[in-house]
């Protein structure tokens, strides 16, 4: 239980100009006095120096503090050396000893209080809450001159100097909480734990630095981006309050701060003010601070008051002098400064390696990305799919406005060399890159990569199976045509494609049988060489194979997707005879056996459907397919209603 007393003076007094703990309060780096939890916005390394002058009877200058600080992820540590945090009192005791008509001996006592160093640690629990503590080391060196009576034949005095000292450790804890974007609350203890070695001379107990316990509460509110109001309260009725304002100066900021403070041990009620001029940039800050006390600070004080009240703060007490201080902070960032970050990644589709270039247009994943900076940023998205791509796959650059979020799409190209047969759960690593050499953020998510024969059931995508391994189809088709060269040579040129298709059909169909998918799945599609090697397949496989053979010799093909029955869908093909409607009678007098389609030039051409699964001769396959097409696509308005779709392979 904290025993809160109200005896001690103000202890939460910092020497620098800005006294609130906020994002812009760079001086909190070195001020354990009011930044009890050691809160910091330093991203990596921070160094701070304060050099200043004190206006006593003469001006003295000193290095007040050197601070080094480092952030490790959510952890932040700092170490402070404070050679200038010292205060000395001299008491000339007036003890006069007449001795053999010599001048009286004036004895002197010196009370030197020093804060030598301190260390702080804080842990950022989340962006709104940080907790921490600091440990500070003090030394109290007291020197008392006294006379010692010597009794020999005569009595005389000798002057003796008695040195006595005490070490003091103080530990306090605190937290910084941001309930709102513009509101920061800072809580801490004062003198929570103190450990000290005792003075040898108990007379010195009276002069020890006071360590009464108290609580500290700081409130910082920013009505606008660069305007900050702050109020630091202590339960001993001391407080410090003020404001700061920063102006944009190119990419830097220039501003001022002023604080006024009330200390229960000092007069008048507002004991002094601390105006400051501040310059802050990306890599360093400067502040020029003046500590002005309103009461007359002459160089003398009452011994009895000092003995009764002591001091509770080395750098701010009723004996402190005005000070002018220059503080420099260096912010060295050896880490990549994160400019954007992932808010989440959604996998849009699993990978079918056969559909290799499908992912160039259709994103594999979409990420939600936040711009952490106050400027527009171009983000380069990269992705690596383990097992699929060794190299980083870059997607189009996306621009994100300041502090805004945007969706970033990740596209992929699947290598034609991918040979994985079985589906596999793998991981995709997503990266965001901006101006840095390294990634700003990284995200990993599981992804299903199907086998090379897997098909997503979309007939549109069967063309990927048709187009693959075209070299094989060319060889196969040409070898058939070569065997039937004499027959082809006798055919009229206009009927060349028709007869080539017929010859190839009748040739390759001889050795085939209809088989369902080996995994009893409609989403397994064989490549043409597999179909011919296995000597069979289902409608998809056979259609793909025949289409590939025709395409390999320049005959246009299209897939006909019958989707009237959603459970039992069917695919066959049609090909372009290149005959004009007027020439259609050369192949059939029945106009239901062919269909007229416009080519890219707008000219009508005769297409005929083929049902490969009939596994009969060309004429039968043609007839069966024509009947089915006439019935479902024409008579039942399948083409109009979308129950039947014609999908060009190219």
């Amino acid at each position, binding site marked *: 239980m904290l025993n809160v007393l109200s005896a001690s003076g103000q202890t939460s007094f910092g020497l620098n100009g800005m006294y609130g703990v906020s994002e812009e309060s760079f001086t909190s780096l070195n001020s354990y006095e009011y930044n009890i939890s050691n809160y910091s916005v330093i991203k990596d390394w921070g160094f701070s120096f304060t050099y200043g002058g004190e206006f006593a009877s003469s001006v003295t200058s000193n290095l007040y503090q050197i601070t080094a600080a480092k952030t490790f992820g959510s952890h932040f540590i700092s170490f402070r050396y404070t050679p200038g945090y010292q205060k000395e*009192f*001299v008491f000339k005791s*007036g003890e006069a*000893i007449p001795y053999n008509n010599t001048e009286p001996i004036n004895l002197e006592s010196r009370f030197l209080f020093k804060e030598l160093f301190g260390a702080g640690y804080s842990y950022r629990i989340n962006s709104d809450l940080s907790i921490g503590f600091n440990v500070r080391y003090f030394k109290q060196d007291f020197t008392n001159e006294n006379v010692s*009576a010597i009794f020999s034949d005569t009595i005389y005095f000798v002057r003796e100097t008695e040195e006595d000292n005490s070490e003091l450790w103080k530990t306090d804890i605190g937290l910084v909480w941001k309930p709102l974007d513009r509101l920061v609350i800072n809580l801490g203890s004062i003198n929570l734990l103190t450990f000290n070695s005792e003075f040898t001379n108990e007379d010195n107990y009276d002069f020890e630095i006071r360590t009464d316990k108290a609580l500290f509460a700081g409130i910082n509110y920013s009505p606008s981006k660069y305007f900050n109001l702050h109020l630091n309260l202590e339960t001993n009725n001391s407080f410090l309050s003020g404001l700061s304002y920063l102006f944009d100066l190119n990419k830097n900021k220039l501003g001022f701060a002023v604080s006024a403070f009330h200390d229960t041990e000092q007069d008048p009620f507002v004991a002094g003010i601390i105006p400051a001029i501040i310059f802050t940039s990306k890599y360093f800050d400067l502040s020029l601070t003046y500590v002005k006390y309103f009461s007359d600070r002459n160089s003398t004080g009452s011994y009895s008051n000092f003995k009764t009240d002591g001091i509770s703060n080395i750098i701010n007490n009723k004996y402190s002098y005005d000070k002018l201080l220059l503080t420099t902070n260096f912010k060295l960032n050896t880490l990549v400064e994160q400019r954007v970050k992932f808010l989440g990644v959604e996998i849009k589709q699993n990978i079918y390696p056969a559909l290799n270039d499908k992912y160039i247009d259709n994103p594999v994943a979409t990420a939600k990305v936040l711009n952490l900076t106050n400027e527009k940023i171009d983000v380069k998205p990269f992705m690596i799919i383990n097992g699929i791509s060794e190299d980083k796959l870059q997607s189009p650059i996306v621009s994100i406005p300041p502090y805004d979020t945007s969706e970033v799409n990740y596209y992929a190209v699947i290598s034609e060399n991918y040979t994985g047969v079985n589906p596999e759960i793998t991981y995709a690593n997503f990266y965001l890159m901006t101006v840095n050499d390294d990634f700003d953020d990284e995200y990993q998510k599981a992804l299903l990569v199907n086998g090379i024969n897997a098909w997503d059931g979309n007939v549109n995508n069967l063309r990927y199976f048709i187009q693959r391994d075209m070299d094989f189809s060319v060889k196969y088709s040409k070898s058939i045509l070569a065997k039937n060269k004499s027959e082809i040579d006798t055919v009229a040129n206009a009927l060349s494609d028709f007869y080539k298709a017929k010859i190839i059909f009748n040739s390759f169909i001889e050795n085939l049988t209809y088989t369902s998918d080996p995994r009893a799945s409609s989403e397994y599609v064989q490549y043409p060489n597999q179909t011919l090697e296995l000597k069979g397949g289902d409608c998809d496989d056979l259609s793909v194979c025949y289409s590939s053979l025709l395409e390999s010799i320049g005959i246009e093909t299209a897939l006909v997707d019958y989707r009237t029955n959603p459970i039992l869908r069917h695919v066959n093909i049609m090909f372009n005879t290149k005959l004009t409607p007027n020439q259609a009678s050369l192949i059939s007098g029945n106009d239901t056996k062919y269909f007229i389609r416009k080519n890219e030039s707008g000219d009508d051409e005769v297409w005929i459907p083929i049902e490969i699964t009939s596994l009969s001769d060309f004429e039968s396959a043609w007839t069966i397919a024509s009947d089915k097409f006439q019935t479902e696509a024409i008579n039942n308005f399948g083409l109009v209603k979308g129950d039947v779709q014609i999908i060009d392979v190219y």
Partner: protein
Amino acid sequence: MKKLFLYIMLLGAFLYYGCDTPGPTELIADPNESDNLEVEIIGKDLDNEYYSNGFDTTGVTDVVQDYASIISVSGIKLTRDGRTDNISTALTFLFDRTKPFRTPQGNIIGYNTIVPGIIKFNDVTARITNYRVRYREAGVLIDTVLGKKYELFNINGRVFNDPFIFPYNSAISFLYNPFVGPSSGFDIITPKEITGNVKLVRLPNQNKIRAELTWQGENVNNFSIILGGVRNSNQQVFPFFRIKTNDDGRLVIPDSILKNIPRDRFNKISITFVRKYDKLAQIQNTELYVSSQSIHTIIVELP
């Protein structure tokens, strides 16, 4: 590397030459600050002898040669061995300044005295007794009588002593009736009774002692405390120091003053609180130093 070394050297020079010791604050003792000590060595030579002439219990013989004549009235308390005696004295020394008495070394230690008439304190006629001094010559103690003095003495109100009781915080009438000429006199104001308390404190964990003295402070200007030792040999008080301090009720005599008192020669210390009114008066063109004292002497054993 050379640049780095230069920077380090410059930084080091800056830190060394650019840093002063901060200006100290000088603490000033308040006028009534009790811890202000003025210590005067009284008995510089431990072998000096001070004749206990009843002047007071301090062991101190005032430097009589500084005055033409002396009138001294004292209310004295002497505390030792758990008992306190109340003593009243009234003394008058009328010196013949033409007849100084010198030691073999030539130091004046007194004057011959004269008895030119009758002296009364509060209508009590003072007795005329020998005025003795003691000094050391060639290692031999010598007592000698320098003349007569006027004296009244009473201890604990005993009837066989002089019927004179020192009235504290009041006045004593002094009357001088010369054998030739008219009588003259005046009142001697007396200070408040002083009751001191001495506490010898051994400091914890330290081989140190200190004497904490307390009394009822009256802020009388002429206030002093005399620290002395009680000789083992003759139990007489030998004064070491006169400590001039404020009559504010508290004083600590530090260990540094007490620690070296030779125990083989002094097994007790005496602490005498002296509150004094003094003035100069004129009687028949003769200047008199008039001293009115309230004294409390406490004798304690050294731990």
